[in-house]
């Protein structure tokens, strides 16, 4: 430790990022009560981050389900337990794949557009204009998107899961000939509402907050240039994906 040479420290930078994000979270939370008067704006944002993400979420859910059905049927048939395809698919989806994959897709679809939108608002002085019209951008722009993410993510993850179950059912039952009753009765026998379905719902709620928090933070603090916006958009995907997976691990390890 004799050299006081400043070198780029990945850990230090990450910590600083997390700290700045934490402070931003506090100011978002402080703005939430004030944002309630812009309820219509929150509704509009649920449309943009939620309804507009439906196509990608449904398509990917279906394909994930198809793949899971194929893979698990093949693997489980080695143990003579193809009856458990439904169970394994459902548990894997509810507990992990649904919340995590939806969050990653959500970061790519909704997170980037939130960052780009807020970044451009910054670059074109729209945020300053709101300040000048005595409208707090934290309450009018940031908080509604944050709330919309929290509302939309669990719903998106549920839709994703439903489509994936449908896909797995199509493969296992319709194509590969597993008995329909076996598929469902094994699933209903083993899957629990609270430990499986609701766990996934809590996770995806948290992930929705994480992704929109990162996205709004990156947009809000972006350098007001086209380059800055492009860079911020990339960082939204990278940071929110890493944060999502890290928090997923923590939640799985300590809370569930």
């Amino acid at each position, binding site marked *: 430790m004799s050299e006081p040479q400043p070198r780029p420290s990945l850990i230090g930078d990450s910590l600083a990022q997390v700290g700045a994000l934490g402070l931003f979270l506090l100011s978002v939370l402080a703005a939430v009560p004030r944002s309630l008067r812009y309820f219509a704006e929150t509704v509009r944002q649920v449309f943009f981050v939620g309804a507009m993400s439906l196509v990608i979420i449904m398509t990917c859910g279906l394909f994930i389900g198809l793949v899971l059905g194929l893979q698990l049927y093949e693997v489980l048939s080695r143990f003579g337990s193809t009856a458990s395809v439904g169970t394994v698919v459902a548990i894997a989806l509810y507990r992990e794949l649904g919340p995590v994959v939806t969050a990653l897709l959500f970061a790519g679809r909704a997170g980037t557009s939130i960052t780009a939108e807020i970044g451009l608002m910054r670059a*074109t002085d729209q945020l300053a204009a709101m*300040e000048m*019209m*005595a*409208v707090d951008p934290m309450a009018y722009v940031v908080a509604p998107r944050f709330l919309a993410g929290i509302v939309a993510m669990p719903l998106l993850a549920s839709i994703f899961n439903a489509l994936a179950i449908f896909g797995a059912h199509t493969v296992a039952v319709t194509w590969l000939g597993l008995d329909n009753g076996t598929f469902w009765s094994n699933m209903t026998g083993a899957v629990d509402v609270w430990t499986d379905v609701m766990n996934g719902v809590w996770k995806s709620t948290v992930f929705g907050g994480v992704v929109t928090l990162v996205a709004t933070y990156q947009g809000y603090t972006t350098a007001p240039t086209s380059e800055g916006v492009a860079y911020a958009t990339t960082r939204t995907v990278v940071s929110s994906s890493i944060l999502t997976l890290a928090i997923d691990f923590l939640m799985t390890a300590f809370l569930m």
Partner: protein
Amino acid sequence: MTAVSTTSTDALVSIRGLRTKLGDKVIFDGVELDIPRGSVTAVMGPSGTGKTTLLRHITGQLRPDAGSIVVDGRELATLDRDGLFDLRERIGYLFQNSALLTDFTVFENVAFPLRQHARLPEELIRNIVLPKLQAVGLRGAAELMPAELSGGMARRVALARAIVRDPMLLIYDEPFVGLDPIALNQVLKLIRTLNHTLGLTSIVVAHELAAVSRVADHIYLLAAGKVAAHGAPDQISRGETEWTRQFFGGEADGPVPFHYPARDYAADLGFTQERA
């Protein structure tokens, strides 16, 4: 809030000893400035002198390093967020680049300040917004999106938005840029009319001396972080100081450097060896 408030002078805005540094650059170094009530005051100066920064100080978007800024009798440094917002509700601000909200129509942009601060019936909102759009000649464009407007049209929409709540202070940051002569004439007339009929105070930042002379009661000329000259338009344009002569004569050399500080030109081009 009455028109007469507790300032001893008749200044709506009064700035004393303003000092600001942005990054490493000293923007203001002891600016003293008064904006009289009910007048049109122009702030002129070479680009990059900090005219926009001055406006950001006056509206509390940016805190100075030192000095006092009093707007309508209130020292900005003592105001919290709510206090600032209260003040800003009575200030109209026309941004240099219009800053229209891109996902609202022209009508909704102008209606935005109304909708955010009061729950008004739709009919009343139309009755307030349409006359403002008519005044800037864009009532027919009410349903267009900002992306469909030219720069000059967007400026006029932004002007309509700035005046929609009948502010006490109206701030224009370079309102004449990008306007064709007809629109320019209309906007000049509008600034005058607003000032005289509504009795509001205006601050106009601009470069165009001809245009400014037609509306302004006072001109402040900023240069090198200080007020270089101030007075009535004819007084200023007669050019009694070196600053004004250079600025209005448009000469590159003089007390205001046209060139951004740089290394020796010949050395930069590699003609001479630079001495270490």
